């Protein structure tokens, strides 16, 4: 039986109480090195990631990562984001505009003795070494995503949260980024929880899938089992 990496129970309500669609009530455990939160827009996937990262204080939640309690609203425990050691690339992640690319990547490893070396290695791994001295404003969308990922990896996080980090990128670039990430994970085994609403991306990741719908987890399991219907639907569309 593999170890439970992460156990989450969460209840949260957004805004006006008269809107039941804004209710979230879910729980799941992660045991696989890579898991994917899958579901349509508005299902609450990003909210789960934000709660895990400590960017959102849920009304009721208990989050345990490898035996360490990050959030327990009943016991009044809340570990702030800067003490969780999470690598996070979200849809709203941005590079610090006043720092160069290298300084951005160094931000999370400033106090480490080998911080500079780790920053350069992370950039090289993501084929972004040549961008080191550039300013964020001079980067394309794809280059920015590579640097954001390098910045999240450089501190060697305990858990990597990826909120649709490849959305909007061309397929070859997505594949290249994924390959680089896999190479890094092979050297630094780190649990990953990513978010997507793209069926093809889930199959490309070959990860365990947690399907979410309207703030609830509907099913959890291997992609080929829990997303068989969606896969068939997509293949039919491709066949025309």
């Amino acid at each position, binding site marked *: 039986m593999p170890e439970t990496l992460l156990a989450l129970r969460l209840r949260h309500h957004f805004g006006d109480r008269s809107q039941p669609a804004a209710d979230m009530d879910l729980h799941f455990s992660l045991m696989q090195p890579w898991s994917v939160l899958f579901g349509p827009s508005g299902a609450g996937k990003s909210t789960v990631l934000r709660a895990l990262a400590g960017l959102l204080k849920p009304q009721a939640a208990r989050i345990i990562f490898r035996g360490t309690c990050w959030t327990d609203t009943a016991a009044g425990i809340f570990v702030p984001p800067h003490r969780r*050691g*999470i690598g996070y690339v979200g849809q709203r992640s*941005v590079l*610090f505009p006043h720092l160069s690319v290298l300084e951005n990547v160094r931000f999370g490893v400033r106090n480490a003795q080998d911080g500079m070396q780790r920053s350069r290695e992370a950039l090289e791994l993501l084929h972004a070494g040549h961008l080191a001295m550039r300013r964020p404003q001079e980067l394309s969308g794809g280059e920015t995503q590579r640097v954001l990922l390098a910045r999240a990896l450089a501190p060697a996080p305990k858990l990597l949260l990826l909120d649709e980090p490849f959305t909007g990128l061309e397929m070859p670039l997505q594949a290249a980024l994924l390959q680089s990430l896999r190479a890094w994970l092979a050297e630094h085994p780190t649990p990953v929880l990513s978010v997507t609403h793209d069926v093809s991306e889930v199959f490309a990741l070959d990860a365990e899938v947690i399907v979410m719908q309207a703030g609830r987890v509907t099913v959890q399991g291997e992609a080929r089992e829990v997303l068989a219907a969606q896969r068939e639907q997509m293949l039919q569309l491709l066949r025309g």
Partner: protein
Amino acid sequence: MDVQALLLTLRLAAITTVILLAIALPLAWWMARTPSRLRPAVEALSSLPLLLPPTVLGFYLLVMLGPNTAVGRALGAIFGHTLSFTFAGLVIGSVLYSFPFAVQPLTAGFRSLDRAVLDDAALLGASPLRTFFSVTLPLARPALTASAVLAFMHTVGEFGVVLMIGGNIPGVTRTISIALYDHVQEFDYAQANHTALLLMVFAFAGLLVLYLRRSSSLARNGGGLA
């Protein structure tokens, strides 16, 4: 040209600006971020000098710093004399009078900061204090400059509060705007013209610096802070 009054004014403006920035930085950050219900009241109070006639502020300060109030007596015990008609009294009056000019640009600058930038800093392990000094302040630099320049220039040009609380003591409370008033009272329009022109050029130069910096900041960051 009244060099003594000019130097005294510059000294007053410099000290006032330093004190104002030290108070305005945490207060503006609080006003930009807090969900507290007290915020509108604090904002209104901090903006009061914008609408209040300087003579009203000066009058109340004169009364408050005098020997008939607890504050005046306490300050008197600390300094050995009351602060009315002293340079220290002028500093207190200037800090209050220029308060909104220091606080408002900073609050606007902090409010316009992208929340995601601060979240990213925290996720990279930065404590709130490190985030403030290594991310918030550098990104709010245009607002900080605006705050400092406006507070300085506004102090240089103040008249009503200075006259009420400081009077007209050469070398102690006689600022450049009081000197200008004296020149006019003495029908010395040539001297008054020199002094007025100097104040006008000074104000224009300050604003020019501010807008030039804002233009270069917009070009560099593709948008940004007040």
